[in-house]
């Protein structure tokens, strides 16, 4: 099976081959996903060299943890996006805090905070499908208030927690919690009604 044959495989088929130590499958996964993962990581760490390093680490993690998730009924897209986001946020937080007060990065930490734990019941989603709803998603996001969008950005791209957002915006934690809840609920609602 040459590399071109892998292009016709689905994300789940590719991931299952990666689980069988097929390095060509991992290469195809890289070719397919590296642009979106790199863009996400770069947005979070805000540095090209660091983003490249994190991207490489993400694919090493994919190889190492290839059998830690059952992809037969899960979705590779959300798993990879969440993995890259968690890894990049961890690097950003360590840079911001100069690793002081941050727990040691070891296997346990990695398994708990970096490796995604997707829901047992999650709809399948692959890169093509995700990109195909991009316009609808953008429309749904634009219907949110600026405050709701801002909270989403702080949480997702800057890796801030409830209490950190509250501190930054000088508002109560309860307010932040309700803003986060409301913004995602509205986003979901807007997306469903827009389809």
């Amino acid at each position, binding site marked *: 099976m040459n590399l071109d044959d892998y292009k016709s495989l689905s994300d789940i088929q590719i991931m299952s081959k990666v689980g069988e130590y097929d390095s060509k499958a991992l290469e195809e996964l890289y070719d397919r996903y590296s*642009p979106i993962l790199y863009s996400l990581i770069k947005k979070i760490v805000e540095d090209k060299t660091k983003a490249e390093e994190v991207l490489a680490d993400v694919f090493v993690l994919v190889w190492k943890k290839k059998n830690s998730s059952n992809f037969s009924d899960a979705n590779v897209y*959300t798993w990879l996006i969440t993995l890259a986001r968690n890894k990049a946020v961890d690097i950003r937080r360590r840079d911001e805090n100069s690793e002081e007060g941050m727990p040691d990065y070891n296997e346990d930490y990695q398994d708990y905070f970096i490796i995604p734990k997707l829901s047992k019941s999650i709809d399948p989603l692959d890169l093509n499908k995700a990109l195909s709803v991009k316009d609808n998603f953008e429309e749904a996001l634009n219907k949110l208030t600026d405050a709701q969008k801002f909270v989403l950005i702080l949480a997702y791209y800057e890796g801030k927690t409830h209490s950190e957002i509250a501190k930054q915006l000088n508002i109560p934690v309860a307010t932040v919690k309700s803003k986060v809840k409301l913004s995602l609920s509205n986003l979901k609602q807007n997306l469903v009604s827009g389809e």
Partner: protein
Amino acid sequence: MSNMESMELLQAKALGCLDPEEDALFTKLMKEDENFPWQELGHYQNLVAFLPTLLDIEVPEPEVKDNVAQKLYELGEKDKAEKDEDVKQNTIAKETEIEEEGFVIEDEPVGNDELPAVGEDLANVDTINDGISFTEHGPQLQNLLNDEKKVGQKPLIKQQQRKTETETIPVKPKKGFEQKKVKSYVTKYPASAADSKSKVGLIVTVILFAIALLAVIFVYFNLSSDIQENREKIDMLERQIGTKIILQNTPTHKIFNT
């Protein structure tokens, strides 16, 4: 935390902004609550994962792919080293186990009367000396030996596999994760002794040739300068001879007058 509270934090969990304490409680609930809203969580996880699709998509530099391949190669080498170390540790542990169980063979002389007669089947001899039963411990010992053989064979098999990889990989022309492996093998594993000898021989030949060439050039210039010198001497002598002849054939007063 009740189911109601978990619903409150569902979106924040999907967005990844729970504080550590909230996250620990939420994880506990995921494990323990039979009525956990898995489907809701799945919806929000997918929803949040749409966010990066709105970014300006950039393609990473090609070197990043090489970097991934290099890291994977190093990871593989590390795993191999760890496995080899485990095998070594297991072997040592088993040897220790043998000693602890009393399988120590002492070189005590055996009396002639205790030796089996020539041709007697050794398997029928149950005890020798202090009553150590070979037929009793024999199967265990055999198993241990077999285990050791298996353990000892593993690295050989790995070496063969490595050899096969290095032989097959250069055929692949395309640059990728496997191609990177080729590069790494080239740098990690030195050339064979024969190769290095032939290289040294080649280098020595080149140096000797260069020295010989320099020697020839040096001799040529030396000889040509000598020849030139000799020619000049000959010319001078010819001139002197010519002058003498003229002087001899010319009267003295003519010489002074000219």
